Protein backbone atom coordinates (compact mmCIF):
# COMPACT_ATOMS: atom_id res chain seq x y z
CA UNK A 1 0.00 0.00 0.00
CA UNK A 2 2.84 2.34 1.00
CA UNK A 3 4.66 1.52 -2.23
CA UNK A 4 1.53 2.28 -4.25
CA UNK A 5 1.22 5.69 -2.63
CA UNK A 6 4.91 6.30 -3.22
CA UNK A 7 4.52 5.49 -6.92
CA UNK A 8 1.37 7.59 -7.16
CA UNK A 9 3.17 10.54 -5.55
CA UNK A 10 6.12 10.18 -7.93
CA UNK A 11 3.78 9.99 -10.92
CA UNK A 12 1.88 13.06 -9.74
CA UNK A 13 5.21 14.86 -9.37
CA UNK A 14 6.20 14.00 -12.94
CA UNK A 15 2.81 15.08 -14.34
CA UNK A 16 2.84 18.32 -12.35
CA UNK A 17 6.46 19.01 -13.35
CA UNK A 18 5.76 18.57 -17.05
CA UNK A 19 2.54 20.64 -16.83
CA UNK A 20 4.34 23.41 -14.95
CA UNK A 21 7.22 23.30 -17.45
CA UNK A 22 4.77 23.57 -20.32
CA UNK A 23 2.99 26.58 -18.76
CA UNK A 24 6.31 28.33 -18.05
CA UNK A 25 7.71 27.73 -21.53
CA UNK A 26 4.40 28.73 -23.11
CA UNK A 27 4.32 32.01 -21.21
CA UNK A 28 8.00 32.63 -21.94
CA UNK A 29 7.40 31.93 -25.63
CA UNK A 30 4.43 34.31 -25.71
CA UNK A 31 6.55 36.98 -24.01
CA UNK A 32 9.84 36.61 -25.90
CA UNK A 33 8.64 35.53 -29.34
CA UNK A 34 5.34 37.45 -29.54
CA UNK A 35 6.65 39.07 -32.73
CA UNK A 36 6.64 35.69 -34.46
CA UNK A 37 3.07 34.82 -33.49
CA UNK A 38 0.91 34.27 -36.58
CA UNK A 39 -2.44 33.23 -35.05
CA UNK A 40 -3.59 32.31 -31.53
CA UNK A 41 -2.49 28.71 -32.22
CA UNK A 42 0.50 29.25 -34.52
CA UNK A 43 3.88 30.86 -33.91
CA UNK A 44 7.04 30.80 -36.02
CA UNK A 45 9.02 29.96 -32.87
CA UNK A 46 7.35 27.60 -30.40
CA UNK A 47 9.72 26.47 -27.65
CA UNK A 48 7.19 24.26 -25.79
CA UNK A 49 7.51 21.89 -28.80
CA UNK A 50 10.97 21.01 -27.51
CA UNK A 51 9.62 20.33 -24.05
CA UNK A 52 6.95 18.13 -25.64
CA UNK A 53 9.58 15.94 -27.28
CA UNK A 54 11.85 15.72 -24.23
CA UNK A 55 9.04 15.01 -21.76
CA UNK A 56 7.58 12.22 -23.91
CA UNK A 57 11.04 10.70 -24.37
CA UNK A 58 11.67 10.76 -20.62
CA UNK A 59 8.26 10.26 -19.01
CA UNK A 60 6.19 8.44 -21.68
CA UNK A 61 2.49 8.36 -20.69
CA UNK A 62 3.08 10.56 -17.65
CA UNK A 63 4.59 13.13 -19.97
CA UNK A 64 1.45 12.96 -22.13
CA UNK A 65 -0.74 13.61 -19.08
CA UNK A 66 1.46 16.51 -18.00
CA UNK A 67 1.38 17.97 -21.50
CA UNK A 68 -2.39 17.57 -21.61
CA UNK A 69 -2.93 19.47 -18.36
CA UNK A 70 -0.33 22.07 -19.30
CA UNK A 71 -1.85 22.76 -22.71
CA UNK A 72 -5.35 22.76 -21.21
CA UNK A 73 -4.32 25.51 -18.79
CA UNK A 74 -2.73 27.59 -21.54
CA UNK A 75 -5.43 26.92 -24.14
CA UNK A 76 -6.85 30.21 -25.49
CA UNK A 77 -10.34 28.70 -25.59
CA UNK A 78 -10.21 27.31 -22.02
CA UNK A 79 -12.66 29.84 -20.61
CA UNK A 80 -14.90 30.15 -23.66
CA UNK A 81 -15.18 26.64 -25.13
CA UNK A 82 -13.96 23.90 -22.77
CA UNK A 83 -14.71 21.04 -25.21
CA UNK A 84 -12.55 22.64 -27.89
CA UNK A 85 -9.81 23.29 -25.34
CA UNK A 86 -9.86 19.62 -24.23
CA UNK A 87 -9.73 18.34 -27.81
CA UNK A 88 -6.88 20.65 -28.86
CA UNK A 89 -4.98 19.76 -25.68
CA UNK A 90 -5.50 16.07 -26.40
CA UNK A 91 -4.19 16.49 -29.96
CA UNK A 92 -1.25 18.51 -28.66
CA UNK A 93 -0.37 15.96 -25.94
CA UNK A 94 -0.92 12.74 -27.90
CA UNK A 95 0.96 13.90 -31.00
CA UNK A 96 4.50 13.74 -29.68
CA UNK A 97 3.75 10.42 -27.96
CA UNK A 98 2.63 8.82 -31.22
CA UNK A 99 5.42 10.47 -33.21
CA UNK A 100 8.12 9.36 -30.77
CA UNK A 101 6.76 5.80 -30.57
CA UNK A 102 6.52 5.41 -34.35
CA UNK A 103 10.00 6.89 -34.89
CA UNK A 104 11.45 4.75 -32.11
CA UNK A 105 10.01 1.65 -33.72
CA UNK A 106 11.17 2.65 -37.21
CA UNK A 107 14.68 3.58 -36.07
CA UNK A 108 14.86 0.62 -33.67
CA UNK A 109 15.56 2.76 -30.63
CA UNK A 110 14.86 0.87 -27.40
CA UNK A 111 12.71 2.05 -24.50
CA UNK A 112 15.75 3.15 -22.48
CA UNK A 113 17.07 5.17 -25.46
CA UNK A 114 20.45 3.40 -25.32
CA UNK A 115 20.74 3.41 -29.14
CA UNK A 116 19.62 7.01 -29.45
CA UNK A 117 22.13 9.11 -31.37
CA UNK A 118 22.10 12.72 -32.53
CA UNK A 119 20.88 11.68 -35.98
CA UNK A 120 17.94 9.77 -34.55
CA UNK A 121 17.11 12.61 -32.19
CA UNK A 122 17.01 15.07 -35.10
CA UNK A 123 14.79 12.69 -37.08
CA UNK A 124 12.49 12.34 -34.07
CA UNK A 125 12.26 16.11 -33.81
CA UNK A 126 11.47 16.45 -37.51
CA UNK A 127 8.88 13.69 -37.44
CA UNK A 128 7.30 15.03 -34.27
CA UNK A 129 6.99 18.52 -35.82
CA UNK A 130 5.53 17.12 -39.02
CA UNK A 131 3.07 14.92 -37.14
CA UNK A 132 2.08 17.82 -34.90
CA UNK A 133 1.41 20.33 -37.68
CA UNK A 134 -0.50 17.83 -39.81
CA UNK A 135 -2.72 16.55 -37.02
CA UNK A 136 -3.48 20.09 -35.84
CA UNK A 137 -4.30 21.05 -39.41
CA UNK A 138 -6.68 18.14 -39.86
CA UNK A 139 -8.26 18.80 -36.47
CA UNK A 140 -8.82 22.47 -37.36
CA UNK A 141 -10.42 21.42 -40.64
CA UNK A 142 -12.56 18.81 -38.89
CA UNK A 143 -13.68 21.30 -36.23
CA UNK A 144 -14.44 23.93 -38.90
CA UNK A 145 -11.84 26.26 -37.41
CA UNK A 146 -9.73 28.49 -39.62
CA UNK A 147 -7.12 26.20 -41.17
CA UNK A 148 -4.73 26.88 -44.00
CA UNK A 149 -1.67 25.11 -45.32
CA UNK A 150 0.35 28.28 -44.66
CA UNK A 151 -0.49 27.97 -40.94
CA UNK A 152 0.42 24.30 -41.06
CA UNK A 153 3.77 25.23 -42.59
CA UNK A 154 4.32 27.95 -39.97
CA UNK A 155 3.50 25.50 -37.19
CA UNK A 156 6.06 23.05 -38.58
CA UNK A 157 8.73 25.76 -38.74
CA UNK A 158 7.83 26.97 -35.24
CA UNK A 159 8.12 23.47 -33.81
CA UNK A 160 11.48 22.89 -35.51
CA UNK A 161 12.88 26.15 -34.11
CA UNK A 162 11.38 25.38 -30.70
CA UNK A 163 12.95 21.93 -30.57
CA UNK A 164 16.27 23.39 -31.74
CA UNK A 165 16.21 26.05 -29.00
CA UNK A 166 15.31 23.56 -26.26
CA UNK A 167 18.00 21.08 -27.34
CA UNK A 168 20.57 23.91 -27.47
CA UNK A 169 19.53 24.98 -23.97
CA UNK A 170 19.85 21.34 -22.89
CA UNK A 171 23.44 21.22 -24.21
CA UNK A 172 24.33 24.54 -22.52
CA UNK A 173 22.88 23.32 -19.20
CA UNK A 174 24.81 20.05 -19.43
CA UNK A 175 28.05 21.93 -20.14
CA UNK A 176 27.44 24.30 -17.23
CA UNK A 177 26.68 21.41 -14.87
CA UNK A 178 29.84 19.63 -16.01
CA UNK A 179 31.90 22.81 -15.57
CA UNK A 180 30.51 23.37 -12.07
CA UNK A 181 31.15 19.77 -11.05
CA UNK A 182 34.76 19.90 -12.31
CA UNK A 183 35.66 23.15 -10.52
CA UNK A 184 35.91 21.76 -6.96
CA UNK A 185 38.33 19.08 -8.18
CA UNK A 186 40.55 21.74 -9.78
CA UNK A 187 40.40 23.81 -6.63
CA UNK A 188 41.31 20.75 -4.59
CA UNK A 189 44.33 20.00 -6.80
CA UNK A 190 45.44 23.64 -6.42
CA UNK A 191 45.25 23.27 -2.66
CA UNK A 192 47.40 20.16 -2.76
Amino acid at each position, binding site marked *: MHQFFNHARN*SALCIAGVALGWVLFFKLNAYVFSYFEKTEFVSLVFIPAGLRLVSVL*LFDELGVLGLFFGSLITSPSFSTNINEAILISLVSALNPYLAVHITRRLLKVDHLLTQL*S*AKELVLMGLFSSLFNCLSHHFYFEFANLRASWADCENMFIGDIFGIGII*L*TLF*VICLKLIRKCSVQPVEQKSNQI
Partner: protein
Amino acid sequence: MANFKLIYQKFLNLANAVEELSEFPTLDPVEQKMLALLSKYWSDKQKITVVEAMHMTTEISTSTIFRYLKKLRQKGYIELVVDEMDNRVKYVSATAQTDSYFNKMGKLMLKASS
Protein backbone atom coordinates in the same frame (compact mmCIF):
# COMPACT_ATOMS: atom_id res chain seq x y z
CA MET B 1 3.82 4.66 -12.73
CA ALA B 2 6.95 6.77 -12.36
CA ASN B 3 10.24 4.95 -12.03
CA PHE B 4 12.92 7.55 -11.38
CA LYS B 5 15.72 5.07 -12.03
CA LEU B 6 14.45 4.44 -15.58
CA ILE B 7 13.82 8.14 -16.11
CA TYR B 8 17.39 8.93 -15.02
CA GLN B 9 18.82 6.26 -17.36
CA LYS B 10 16.78 7.69 -20.21
CA PHE B 11 17.96 11.19 -19.28
CA LEU B 12 21.61 10.09 -19.46
CA ASN B 13 21.09 8.50 -22.89
CA LEU B 14 19.21 11.55 -24.11
CA ALA B 15 21.98 13.81 -22.79
CA ASN B 16 24.55 11.76 -24.72
CA ALA B 17 22.53 12.08 -27.92
CA VAL B 18 22.01 15.82 -27.41
CA GLU B 19 25.70 16.39 -26.76
CA GLU B 20 26.53 14.65 -30.01
CA LEU B 21 24.66 17.46 -31.77
CA SER B 22 27.13 20.08 -30.67
CA GLU B 23 30.30 18.07 -30.28
CA PHE B 24 32.18 15.72 -32.54
CA PRO B 25 30.55 12.31 -32.86
CA THR B 26 31.80 10.22 -29.94
CA LEU B 27 34.66 7.83 -30.57
CA ASP B 28 35.20 4.59 -28.70
CA PRO B 29 38.77 3.56 -27.72
CA VAL B 30 39.25 1.38 -30.83
CA GLU B 31 38.12 4.20 -33.11
CA GLN B 32 40.46 6.61 -31.32
CA LYS B 33 43.34 4.15 -31.75
CA MET B 34 42.57 3.76 -35.44
CA LEU B 35 42.47 7.52 -35.97
CA ALA B 36 45.78 7.84 -34.15
CA LEU B 37 47.33 5.16 -36.40
CA LEU B 38 45.95 6.76 -39.53
CA SER B 39 47.08 10.22 -38.45
CA LYS B 40 50.67 8.95 -38.58
CA TYR B 41 50.32 8.41 -42.34
CA TRP B 42 48.39 11.63 -42.87
CA SER B 43 50.95 13.74 -41.01
CA ASP B 44 53.75 12.23 -43.18
CA LYS B 45 51.66 13.16 -46.25
CA GLN B 46 51.55 9.49 -47.16
CA LYS B 47 48.58 8.04 -48.97
CA ILE B 48 47.16 4.92 -47.37
CA THR B 49 44.87 2.52 -49.18
CA VAL B 50 42.01 0.65 -47.50
CA VAL B 51 43.95 -2.62 -47.83
CA GLU B 52 47.07 -1.06 -46.26
CA ALA B 53 44.93 0.40 -43.49
CA MET B 54 43.54 -3.05 -42.76
CA HIS B 55 47.11 -4.26 -42.13
CA MET B 56 48.45 -1.19 -40.33
CA THR B 57 48.52 -2.93 -36.96
CA THR B 58 48.66 -6.46 -35.67
CA GLU B 59 46.79 -5.55 -32.49
CA ILE B 60 43.45 -5.41 -34.30
CA SER B 61 42.24 -8.01 -36.78
CA THR B 62 41.74 -6.97 -40.43
CA SER B 63 37.99 -7.61 -40.33
CA THR B 64 37.65 -5.48 -37.19
CA ILE B 65 39.67 -2.70 -38.80
CA PHE B 66 37.44 -2.83 -41.86
CA ARG B 67 34.34 -2.63 -39.68
CA TYR B 68 35.77 0.32 -37.79
CA LEU B 69 36.78 2.07 -41.01
CA LYS B 70 33.14 1.91 -42.05
CA LYS B 71 32.10 3.30 -38.67
CA LEU B 72 34.60 6.16 -38.89
CA ARG B 73 33.35 6.93 -42.39
CA GLN B 74 29.74 7.00 -41.15
CA LYS B 75 30.76 9.38 -38.38
CA GLY B 76 32.46 11.64 -40.90
CA TYR B 77 36.05 11.19 -39.66
CA ILE B 78 37.39 9.61 -42.83
CA GLU B 79 36.53 9.60 -46.50
CA LEU B 80 37.49 7.21 -49.24
CA VAL B 81 39.16 8.76 -52.28
CA VAL B 82 39.26 6.69 -55.47
CA ASP B 83 42.64 6.50 -57.22
CA GLU B 84 42.76 8.47 -60.46
CA MET B 85 44.49 5.67 -62.38
CA ASP B 86 42.83 2.63 -60.86
CA ASN B 87 39.19 2.69 -59.75
CA ARG B 88 39.71 -0.39 -57.59
CA VAL B 89 42.16 1.39 -55.30
CA LYS B 90 40.67 3.56 -52.59
CA TYR B 91 42.64 5.80 -50.24
CA VAL B 92 41.64 6.54 -46.69
CA SER B 93 41.81 10.26 -46.21
CA ALA B 94 41.07 12.66 -43.38
CA THR B 95 38.11 15.02 -43.44
CA ALA B 96 37.79 18.62 -42.21
CA GLN B 97 36.05 17.18 -39.13
CA THR B 98 39.13 15.06 -38.37
CA ASP B 99 41.37 18.11 -38.63
CA SER B 100 39.21 20.10 -36.23
CA TYR B 101 39.05 17.06 -33.91
CA PHE B 102 42.86 16.87 -33.76
CA ASN B 103 43.08 20.65 -33.33
CA LYS B 104 40.67 20.49 -30.41
CA MET B 105 42.56 17.58 -28.86
CA GLY B 106 45.83 19.52 -29.21
CA LYS B 107 44.34 22.58 -27.53
CA LEU B 108 42.95 20.46 -24.71
CA MET B 109 46.36 18.85 -24.17
CA LEU B 110 48.00 22.28 -24.01
CA LYS B 111 45.35 23.47 -21.58
CA ALA B 112 45.83 20.39 -19.40
CA SER B 113 49.62 20.74 -19.33
CA SER B 114 49.59 24.48 -18.51
